[in-house]
Each structure stands twice: as C-alpha cells, then as structure tokens.
C-alpha cells in the first residue's frame, strides 16, 4: 500500500539544461583549506531564523534534514531519513532515520529531535520567518496561534521513526522537509545557548563551526563524523566578512581568496570576462529568479487591465539585460525557465511601443498619466528603474522614480494604495525550494494581498487561488507532470490579467580561484547558492 516517492521530474529539466561537465572537471579529492569572502556579516546560523542568501548555504552544510538534494540539482533524495513512505491519500508521511547519525556534540540523533526542531521552527517565540512552510502539518494552527507548543501531526513511535500527519495533501511537503527551517537541532544545545543558538550552532551536517570572530571571520571544519564518509571534500572553510567586492576581487586575483561570494562588481564584469584568466574565474549560471515590476491593481489607472497590458508591451527588457552587462535574460512569465512548469511555448507580451500606445488610448489615456515607481536604492536597481521610467515615457506615462532603502520599499509595497509600481530588484531572491508553488502564494495569491503582505500588485483572483490549491493537493507522484502543467497554466493565465511585468531572469555570477574544482552548478546550486559540501580543491 505504500509507495516510494521517487525523483521529482525537475531532475530531467535541470539535467537537460546543465552542461555535462563531468568530463571536463578534475576528480574530486579530499583535503584543502579555502577562503571565501562576503561583504555582509553573517547574521545567524540558527536554521529556524536564518533567511538570507549568504547564511542559507552555510546553514545547509552545518545541519542535516530528513530530505536533501543531489548536489547541483533539484533532485530530492532522503538524507537524515534512510527511507520514507507516503500513504495513498497523501496525508501520512513515514520516515525511518538513518541509524547512528551524531550531532557534533556527540549525541545520537533520534526521532524526537526532528519533532522538536520543527516545532521550534513553528513556535512564535522562536521568531522564525519560515513557520508558514509547515502549515500543512496537523496542529499547525494551535502552535502558530500560541495555544500549544507541540504539533499533534508529528508522532515518534520509536527513536528511528517519525510520522507526519497532514491536515491537507501538500505536494510540496518533501521540499518543505529539505529547506533550512526543517534542519534538525539538539534541544539541549539550543537551551544551553540561551537565546543565541545562531552563534553557537550544533548540527549533524558536513561542517562544524570551529570559530567565529564577530565582524571578521568564521571558520568551519570538516565534520569527521558526517554520515556520508565521502563528504565533504574540503577540510576547512574560512569565511571572511566585511569584504568590499572590489577588494575581494583584487585579493582573488592575488591568490589570497578562493571564492568571492558576492561575485564581480558590475563595473568590472566585462573587463574580467574578456581577460584570459577571467574566463577561468567566472562561474555564470541560471538561478531560480525572476525580477518583476508590480502593477498595483487597486490604484487608478493601473486597475484597468488594458493599461497594465500596455505597460507590459512598453518595457524594453533587452535594454535592461544590457544594463546588467548581459547577466540576465528577458522574462515573459512569472516562472523562471529552470522551474518545473515553465512554459517554453508562451511568448507573453512582445515589446511594441505603438501597440502599447494604442492600447493606452483605448483605455482612455491617449496622453498617458502620472504615476510613481518604487525601487531599492542600491546599484544597479535605480538604473533599471530609470530605464523603465524612460520606456514608460515613450508611451506618455510619466513615472516618478522613488529609490529608497529596502525596508521602506517593502513597507510601501505592503500598504494598500501606497505604491503604484514597484521594481522588485534586490528583493527577489533564489526560490526557497524548486517548486512552482513557491512563486505563487505570497507574491501573486490572495493571501499575500494583505496589509504587510508581499503581493505588491494587490492582485487577488479567487478562481486562480482555487486552482493553486488543487494543484498543490496533487501529491500523487504519478501526477507530477500533470501538477506541473497545472501550475504552468496558472502562471500563463495570470499574464492575461497582467498584474506584473516579468522583466528578467537574473543569472548569478561567482568568482573563484583557478585551484577550485567541481562543476559550475555546485557554485550556483539551485537549492543552496554555493554547495560547500561538493566543492573541492584541485590536486
């Protein structure tokens, strides 16, 4: 009666896209110390709290979760779980833990640790941003609402078994168990840290935090007890923080740094790319990212679908990719091409100024109108906003660009009637997990179109919401393709209402030294950013 859920069909899509690099790379070998740099300090290594793209990769490597991904791909595989089963109705998930896995404090990982860790992530007292991901587990509302500390939907009949009971089928549930918020932590270490577990992490991942000098550096050592004896390859990773990207690049060129985590500053990109040694340094890959312009459907005259469609036709996306020195490709639908469900046959709104003008006239605005476009104030976002401003001017729309700090833009977007348009740049990040549903709920669904929400178009289409729920209920593995098609159709149907202008799919660029080995897709891992477990030093 049980069925083993196998590969997510994302695998096929990803593997088809990613170049076959195995032959071109050296064989992975153990050993070596590397230096990685970042501009910003690491905020926290607490898996229930950390939620930015820098700490994301480190948390992935410090802790284990029931599920994980094959390095460089979006293929779900059991990790801390040895096996798992899903009931035919998709409501019960049973996991058998891998025996003998140890936390770095020496204690063996047992089923109750899994239960504790997820309850901790959901508990409001933890102040974790990821609580909502576990919404399908029975008893979630009681914990989230503060009336209970334990999730009735998680049972641990013995030390090796964890059973999840869901209140509704959730096809993304295995992905949810692979995100950082589901990392398994030992209760005694969390309590001993007295509210600051993020600086004293204890996990069962590939690395152990050896030393943290606040504001300067973090040192991670290989976990000698990691259950997969082949991993990691690197002995020691030193992460130096507070490093200006331009300086990090100079140091990389001198051989002092192995990975410049913030990539290459835009102004330097072409120079490096065109230099002989530059080609070896740059890793340039697609990520699960869409940069979009929100069109507030509750503000006049953007409440008129013709106006929104006209704006969709007016934005010259090719020019915006040039502003980014080609580190992006024009987008025509909300999903990025790497995401399952992406519709290759969909063309969206073509760039057509004359047609845009005609449509605007048809909507009753032959002379255009005045509006406001919000953007964050860090380069290159204001420049992109200005490019959009010029495009809009070409069809008569005068948009005032307001470039503000990120917090202010988020506040304006989440306040009804405040922001007619928001350029999402700098605030859209790599998807939490490689599933199309992750691009809907908060940013296009009705649940996000609330005060303080992230749906800045304030677009709420109840019929689509219903279809979204239906798609997420299709947890039968035989229906993966059907589910992805259903999701894809939701996103292309949304475009008829044009609440967004999908503008670009940004590529990510990492700069690495010549001694770093491994295929490109582990430096721009679709689920990790940088996969510290799988990178290695060439011998």
């Amino acid at each position: 009666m049980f069925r083993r859920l196998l590969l997510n069909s994302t695998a096929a899509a990803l593997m088809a896209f990613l170049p076959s690099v195995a032959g071109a790379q050296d064989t992975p070998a153990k050993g070596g110390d590397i230096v990685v740099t970042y501009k910003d300090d690491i905020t926290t290594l607490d898996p229930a709290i950390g939620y930015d793209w820098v700490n994301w990769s480190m948390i992935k490597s410090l802790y284990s979760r029931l599920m994980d991904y094959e390095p460089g791909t979006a293929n779900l595989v059991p990790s801390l779980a040895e096996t798992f089963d899903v009931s035919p109705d998709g409501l019960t998930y049973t996991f058998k833990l891998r025996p003998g896995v140890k936390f770095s404090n020496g204690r063996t990982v047992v089923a109750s640790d899994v239960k504790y860790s997820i309850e901790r992530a959901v508990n409001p007292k933890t102040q974790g941003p990821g609580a909502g991901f576990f919404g399908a587990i029975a008893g979630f509302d009681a914990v989230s609402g503060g009336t209970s500390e334990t999730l009735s939907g998680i049972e641990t009949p013995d030390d090796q078994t964890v059973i999840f009971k869901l209140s509704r089928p959730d096809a993304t549930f295995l992905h949810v168990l692979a995100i950082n918020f589901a990392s398994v932590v030992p209760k005694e270490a969390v309590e001993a840290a007295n509210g600051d577990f993020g600086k004293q992490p204890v996990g069962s991942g590939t690395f152990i935090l050896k030393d943290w000098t606040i504001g300067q550096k973090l040192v991670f050592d290989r976990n000698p007890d990691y259950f997969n004896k082949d991993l990691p390859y690197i002995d020691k990773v030193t992460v130096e923080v507070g490093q200006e990207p331009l300086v990090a690049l100079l140091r990389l060129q001198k051989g002092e740094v192995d990975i410049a985590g913030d990539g290459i500053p835009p102004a330097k990109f072409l120079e490096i790319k065109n230099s002989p040694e530059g080609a070896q340094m740059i890793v340039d890959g697609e990520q699960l990212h869409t940069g979009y312009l929100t069109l507030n459907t509750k503000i006049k005259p953007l409440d008129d679908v013709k106006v929104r469609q006209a704006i969709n036709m007016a934005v010259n996306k090719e020019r915006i990719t040039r502003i980014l020195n080609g580190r992006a490709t024009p987008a025509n639908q909300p999903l990025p091409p790497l995401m399952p469900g992406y519709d290759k046959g969909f063309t969206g709104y073509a760039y057509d100024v004359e047609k845009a003008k005609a449509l605007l006239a048809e909507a009753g605005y032959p002379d255009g109108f005045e509006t406001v476009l919000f953007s964050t104030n860090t380069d290159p976002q204001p420049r992109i906003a200005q490019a959009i401003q010029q495009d809009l001017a070409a069809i008569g729309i005068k948009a005032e660009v307001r470039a503000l700090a990120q917090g202010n833009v988020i506040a304006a977007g989440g306040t009804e009637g405040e922001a007619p348009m928001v350029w999402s740049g700098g605030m859209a990040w790599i998807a939490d997990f490689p599933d199309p549903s992750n691009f809907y709920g908060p940013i296009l669904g009705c649940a996000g179109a609330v005060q303080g929400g992230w749906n800045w178009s304030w677009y709420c289409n109840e019929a689509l919401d219903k279809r979204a729920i239906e798609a997420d209920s299709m947890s039968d593995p035989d229906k993966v393709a059907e589910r992805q098609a259903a999701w894809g159709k939701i996103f292309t149907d949304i475009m008829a209402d044009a609440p967004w202008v999908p503008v670009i799919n940004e590529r990510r660029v990492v700069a690495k030294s010549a001694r770093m080995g491994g295929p490109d897709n582990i430096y721009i891992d679709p689920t990790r950013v940088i996969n510290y477990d799988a990178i290695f030093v060439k011998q």
Partner: protein
Amino acid sequence: MLQLLAKRLVQSALILFGVSAITFVLLYALPADPARMIAGRSATAQTVANIRHELGLDKPLIVQFGHYVGGLVHGDLGRSYAQKTQVATLIAARLPATLTLMAAGIALEVLFGMLLGVTAALHRGKLADRVIMMSSFVGVSAPQFVVALLLLYVFAATLGWFPMSGYGTAAHVILPAATLGLLGAGWYARMVRSAMIDVLNQDYVRTARAKGLSRARVVLRHALPNATLPIVAMIGIDIGQFMGGVVVVEAVYGWPGIGQLAWQAIQQVDIPIIMGVTLTSALAIILGNLLADVIAPAIDPRIRSH
C-alpha cells in the same frame, strides 16, 4: 573642578536620555516594518504578526520606550532583531577595532593638520599657504571611497607593502588610518592656521621675538601651545564621529568596526543595534567633550580662572 564634573555628568545623562528618545521616535516613524523585514517574502501574515508580537512591536510606542529605557538603566541594550545576539556583545566585539582606528586616524589627522596648518600660517599669503589651503580643501571634499581604493590599489595591490584588508596587526591599520588622516587633516590645518595667525599677532609673541628668541622657539614654545586649544575641542568631536563609524573606509579595508555593524543594521531595520550604536556614539561625544574640557585648562591657565 569636582562641581563642574558633577554638573557635566548630570548634563550627560540628560543628553543621553534625549538622544535615545529622539532616535527611538525617529526609528519608530520610519515607514519600514522590522517584523516584515525579518519575516521575508514567504512568510504568512500570521508569521509576521507573531514576530511583531514577540518583539513587542505591537505595543504602544511609549510602552516600548519605557521598556527600552528600563533595560538601559540595567545596562541592557537589548537583543538584535535579526541576529538575536545581545547588542552589547556585538558592540563590544567591534570596539577594539573602532578604538584602534580612532586612535591611529586622529593621531595622523592631528599630525598632518598641525604640520600643514603651522606651515601655512608662517607663510601666510605666499605660495605654500595657498597650495596647502587648496589641497586641504580637496582633502576634506574628496570622496572617501575613491581615496581609500586608490591607496589600497597603489600600496597594497600593486606595491604589496601592506595587507589588502583585515585587522589584527600594525600593518593592517596603516592604510585605513592614513586615508582618514589625509582626508581629515584639512579641517585641522585650517583651524591651526587661523589660530596660529591669531596668536602670531599677539603682543606676547612680538615680545618674545623682541627678546631675541629664535623663530623656532617662538613658534614651538610660545605660539603653538596657544594655537592648539581649538584642536582639543575638535578631537572631542572627532571621537564621537569615529565611534559612530567611518563606514566607507571600514568597508573598503574590511575593518570590523562599529560603522559596518551600524550600516548593516540600518539596511535590516535592526532597531536595537541602531539604537545601541547611536547611544555609544553619543556617549563618546560626551566623553570626548568632557575630556576636552578637562585638558583645555591644563594647556591654557587662563581658562581655569573663568
């Protein structure tokens, strides 16, 4: 003296209270919701509301402020919203770096500034004066980022005399301190020049010269000490500024000072850290001024009688 100190301490406490009240209200008035920032894109409305509640942000402003001041009285600066670490721990971790850079930077500022200012004053109206005044103007208006990168490129990347970034040894401090010294010296040079010109026109300097003392002795023994008074006050202000952070210079040289901490906190609307750094900076300005007030009478006995 004791009476003066006691008066100044009471004043200082009131100033700190004022600074914390104003900063608190300004941060609260920001149209940026810290809970929303922490929660990120994927959070549900319930999660955001829960975070807001746990941080106490759903309470009236006056209650939040009362709670904050109550903590301050017990030496508690609160916990960072994003990091959950004690703000005092975060600031303490960066204080040594900030103090080191402050000491080295101010020392170089004063050294360059005095040299240039005295030279300009002694050659008043001549070419040297004009060149110094012009270059001091360029110095104070040059973008820190450009100068810092230039020094780094020449002396660290190309010549390799100094490490490119980091903290810990004497070699690490030279380039960032030199950047601050070069850029800040202009203010000191201008101040020393005008004070020197003022002093050189005083009767006692004329008397000293008339007595047949050498020019060097007149300048160093009689004129300079009296021209340094305004510098002492200026150092007091500089201490406060450095404590608030020299963000750009710290960023270029990867210097783990308080400026970096504040800059990241501002981006994340991490109010406890912003408050903590503001108060530390205000405290430093107060202490700096207090120090200036104590040192000034030692240099100029006339102040004591006032």
